[in-house]
């Protein structure tokens, strides 16, 4: 189920990137795409009835099923990178606004 939600978000992000011509909206679309991607990664590692793959000393969980820990670790990295690019994109959006006085790409004209 989670996969379908993630894929829907990916599609939504792509749709946004295709149709939007506003700098901020493009950034938002990109974020939606990335979040969909992150969800998708998590969903790949998900196991039915699995528990968080954390080894604790006071609770013996040897016999239980873990979800795959690797995708979770990957998502952590991907989120960090996503935040970095978003910040950079927003900084650029600020630059664009200062230069053109608008966020609409159509109003900036071809160079």
């Amino acid at each position, binding site marked *: 189920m989670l996969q379908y939600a993630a894929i829907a978000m990916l599609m939504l992000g*792509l749709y946004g990137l*295709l*149709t939007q*011509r506003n700098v901020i909206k493009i950034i938002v679309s990109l974020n939606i795409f990335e979040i969909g991607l992150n969800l998708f990664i998590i969903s790949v590692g998900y196991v039915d009835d699995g528990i968080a793959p954390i080894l604790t000393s006071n609770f013996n969980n040897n016999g239980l099923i873990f979800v795959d820990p690797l995708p979770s670790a990957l998502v952590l990295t991907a989120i960090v990178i996503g935040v970095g690019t978003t910040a950079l994109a927003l900084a650029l959006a600020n630059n664009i606004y200062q230069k053109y006085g608008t966020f609409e*790409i159509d109003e*900036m004209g071809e*160079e």
Partner: protein
Amino acid sequence: MTVELLIILTLVLGLVSYFMGRFNKVYGAVVTIIASMFVFISVGYMANDILDGSTFNYNAVKYLPVFATFTVSYLGIFFAILVTFVFAMVSFFNPFFVEKYKYPAVYNMLYIFSLAGVLGVFFTDNLMVLFFFFEFVVWSGLFIIPLGKSKKAAVSYYAFSTAGSFALLYAIFIMRDVAGTYNLYAGLASVSGTTQGTYVMILLSISAFSKLGAFPLHTWLPAAHGNAPHPFSPVLSGALVKLGAFVAILALVKLAPVGDLQSVFGSYTDATFLYASQYAVAILGAMTIVFGTLMAIRQDDAKKLLAYSSVSNGGYILVALSIGGSVGLAGGLYHIIAHALASAAAFLAIGAVSRVTGTSKMSELGGMIHKMPITYMVYLIAIISMAGIPPMGGFISKWLIFQAVIDNGLILIAVAVFFGSIGSFLYVFRPLAALFLGQELPQHKDKAKIPPFFMLLPMIILSLLIVYTGVFPNYILGFINDVMAELGVDALVIGKYTIQGPNGVLHPTLVASVFGVGVLIAFIIFIVLKKSRKVGLMDTYTAGNFIYTEELMHYSLDFYAPIERLYEKYINITEDFYKKLENKVVDFGRMVKYFFFTNKPEVTVFWIVVIIGFLLWGDL
């Protein structure tokens, strides 16, 4: 002296001339004389060796890659000695022209580099090495041409030459694939008569056509020859174009012909041994002849006129080589010599004139005979040879070609060949009349003077050789017989002073002596009879009116206007074709730029979605 060493030495001399040229322009140009004379003499020694029957397979310089092997064949030596001779003769002109160039030192270096490249092409038995030097000649010539008048000419030279070299390269790969080796002879032998052989022949023909400037790949040649620096035009026309003839021999003589014409046209042609491939090349050659002639007739620039005559003569070479047989091949090879000598001499003469006048346009020149009589004689002898009139070399070769064409019953081609011959009467004498005869123009009166001795020397040597090839062709024909024996063609039957054709015997020496007597009589009449009175150019009136624009009275302006009107609508067809082709590429480029390169990220996203969609479409 091994071939590698010679080539390497030549390259080194090229660098020497560059540094000499940086130091002193003229000294650098003198190095080109020394280098090209040195190369010519070395090649002469090789020729001497091969005639003594020594064996040749040089591979002495061990630091070269293993595949860089060289060999001296009769065919190679035939071309090499001719081309290096032209280089050597023309190099005498360099010191007198080099000062005007923008980059004189570079000119000197590249002049010698192209000489080295030519040597490499003719003396290798390895196809890859052949291609290497083929391209080397292209790029070294490429940077010389724009030192003349036009950059565009250089670009179109590069475009057509490269098209030719790439066709050659592809043919080389096919041969390599079949033969498993880059050896020239093994490669040609292995594809001969197979399906791949057909492709190889087509590709080699494209290469030969583009280098030789034959229709329809000729458009670069007039631009390049006409706009190149004056000393480089004779090299282009007399030497570098002959690379095309070399490739044509590989394609037409060394490969087995393709397509049996006899079974298709059996009853319509008497061409008993002509194949479809040879016939196609011969037809294109014939078209080249006609086209070159018609275009040459309407040129105003003397160099362009000679350039178109080179086109037309390239057609003769193709016709002769494609007909083949002992007479045809001998005619073709002899025509290569005759045309190289004549066009080199003619270009040099025009170069000598434009050195002092600064123009080679016929309508702006006249009466140069008064100050430059020897140059006039050189040009006269050259054009007599070009027009194929005895007693010059061009007559012998054209006689042989006519014999071959008639003997095979090729009526269409015969018409073209005769048309070209008559046409060349029409055009080659125009520069003679316009540049040299007539009245002296006031603007050039003070500048014109006898060229310096070292410019006259090569021109005189070339003229003497043109006469020699016309009067005593049999020594050279003997060498051509050796070349033909190597190519596996029966020898031409020659006596001590006679040439045996299929339809009769030619006595060149006799013809020449009859001509000599005629000229002598004319000369006596000239001496005995009254001298004509010289009048100034402005001393002209028509219908009692003084003429203000005397250029319009120049009788070589629009000389053949009535003939030109017949075909002037159609002259640009090939040029337009290439122009349109170029525009198509540009349009395509612009279109892609317009569709794909905007400042919006959505284009990329769109294509990503489309491509992923395409993949999934196939799967679902």
